[in-house]
């Protein structure tokens, strides 16, 4: 199959969109407060700090404290964004997320930057392949991985207005414009491309290679592949899952996360419990010592790429 990276229009990193969106929100709302753990540079928040120095709380390298302080700020009426690399935020401060944010119902927006294997060669200490799984098992938190710039902006804006906790995770590489579909609502999946033979349900920045694979298969093989951005992993959009199961004989899920406990297993349990027996495959990072390399090398190795996803789909036809 011919691989092409030129089908989609350019975009910027979701991280940059996040930073710009926060500045936009802060310009209109003094109650927006960003809490960082020596992470303002990584989070591209330096322009925010310059413009709104009164609306940032720096806690230093202390992620547990980051989330505890964020909860305390939120309980006093602030619209809080607690920003730190996803790997630390959802592991080291998991108890603070569970107790101080979710259980105590303090509506903090927990922003996991450089999610998945964004930090590539820095190794597993810096990867977050567990965050969807652990947060899915915690009551009272919405779990979101926006696919592109549009979804990121909308997710941040909607989260700011929610009165319950939200976790949003994204990466730092540029993501192209994926769809003209301008509908976005947390909890409702976004149809990126219609199809009929195969549906790819992807989340976060794997929607991009999923769409590329779909376009490639259409061009090269005449296979009609639907692509759905399941940006909200919890609560899952069951109505679209039901539609997908009824209309597509083959379903593939894709995520930059462990194959355990993430989007794929969430979909699988819905399909099984509701009697759907479509051919089904979960693509993600397998349960092994993660291969070393850059983000794109790691994802390529595990088949989370245009080529890898297209090949996996062709095998499902076999």
């Amino acid at each position: 199959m011919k691989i092409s990276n030129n089908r989609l229009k350019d975009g910027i990193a979701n991280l940059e969109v996040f930073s710009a969106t926060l500045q936009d929100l802060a310009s209109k709302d003094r109650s927006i407060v960003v809490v960082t753990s020596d992470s303002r540079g990584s989070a591209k928040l330096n322009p925010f700090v310059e413009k709104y120095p009164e609306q940032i709380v720096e806690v230093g390298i202390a992620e547990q404290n980051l989330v505890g302080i964020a909860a305390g700020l939120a309980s006093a009426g602030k619209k809080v964004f607690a920003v730190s690399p996803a790997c630390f935020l959802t592991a080291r401060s998991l108890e603070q997320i569970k107790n101080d944010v979710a259980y105590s119902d303090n509506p903090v927006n927990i922003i996991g930057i450089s999610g998945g294997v964004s930090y590539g060669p820095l190794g597993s200490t810096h990867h977050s392949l567990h965050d969807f799984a652990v947060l899915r098992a915690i009551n009272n938190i919405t779990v979101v991985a926006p696919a592109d710039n549009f979804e990121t902006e909308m997710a941040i804006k909607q989260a700011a207005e929610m009165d319950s906790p939200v976790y949003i995770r994204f990466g730092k590489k540029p993501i192209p414009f994926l769809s003209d579909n301008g509908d976005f609502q947390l909890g409702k999946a976004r149809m990126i491309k219609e199809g009929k033979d195969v549906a790819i349900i992807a989340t976060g920045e794997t929607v991009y290679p999923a769409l590329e694979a779909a376009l490639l298969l259409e061009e090269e093989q005449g296979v009609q592949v639907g692509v759905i951005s399941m940006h909200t992993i919890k609560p899952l959009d069951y109505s679209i899952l039901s539609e997908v199961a009824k209309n597509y004989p083959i379903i593939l899920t894709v995520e930059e996360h462990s194959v355990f406990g993430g989007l794929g297993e969430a979909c699988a349990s819905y399909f099984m419990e509701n009697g759907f027996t479509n051919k089904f495959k979960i693509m993600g990072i397998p349960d092994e010592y993660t291969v070393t390399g850059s983000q794109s090398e790691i994802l390529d190795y595990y088949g989370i790429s245009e080529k890898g996803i297209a090949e996996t789909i062709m095998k499902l036809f076999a």
Partner: protein
Amino acid sequence: MIRRIFLKNKKMTNQELEIKSLQYRKKVLKYIKLAKAGHTGGSLSCTDILNVLYNEVLNVSPDKFSDPDRDRYVQSKGHSVEALFVVLADKGFYPESKLETLCKFKSHFIGHPTKKVPGIEQNTGALGHGLPICVGTAIAAKLDKKSYKVFTLLGDGELMEGSNWEAAMAASHYKLDNLVAILDYNQLQITGATKDVCNSDPIDSKFEAFGWAVRHVDGHDIKELREAFGQVPFEEGKPSFIIAHTNKGKGISYMENSIKWHHGVPNDEQYILGQDELDKQLESIKNSEITKR
């Protein structure tokens, strides 16, 4: 200039508050016995602190609880919740009869504070969480230029949790003189003496080194507690730390300074003995008041 805490209810004498403490202790014992569960020793060690806080210091009441300008109290040593439940009932947040449901199926009155109970600010129970949350709320007060104060009660065993020290650093970094942490320094934890389990002494110089203003008080002396709370912030620009020297199991001789009563529940005989001891102390205070008159 940060305002000094205004002591709202000057009507009560020290003796009246001492009587209240004994009445609270009797109720703590009663409801723990009824529930067949509870952290008896720690609840008895922090009773006087909660008494002074809720009757003298905190600007909170049932009708003001949604007021954004109210003082905040977060009980970080959440397991001593029975004392807090008894005090909140006395302050009118709910009828005392609710405590008959303590630890029962579907009751909101569980073994740790939850916001389902009127008067509770934060859900606690896991140790090392209260101080970071209070740092956040105290920062919010500063950002909003509000004058409310934020209080938290810590256990000395709890200080072994590293998150406290992250919060302690941030509190002085942000010059949170609107934050007051009280240490229930009873020097015991479930395994034994804190100094034997993993010594955290000297606590005063540690907190001073972290930029806090520190005072020692007798945590069972109403007068000393009132004076200490009346003087916060101890230093402008610094968070205040009150080391309240307490006795785990205070007021019931066979429970005092004994780890057995960390979460021990009295049997019938022990219960009667405990209530008798508290009654005698009550009588003695009342008699001393009469003598004075």
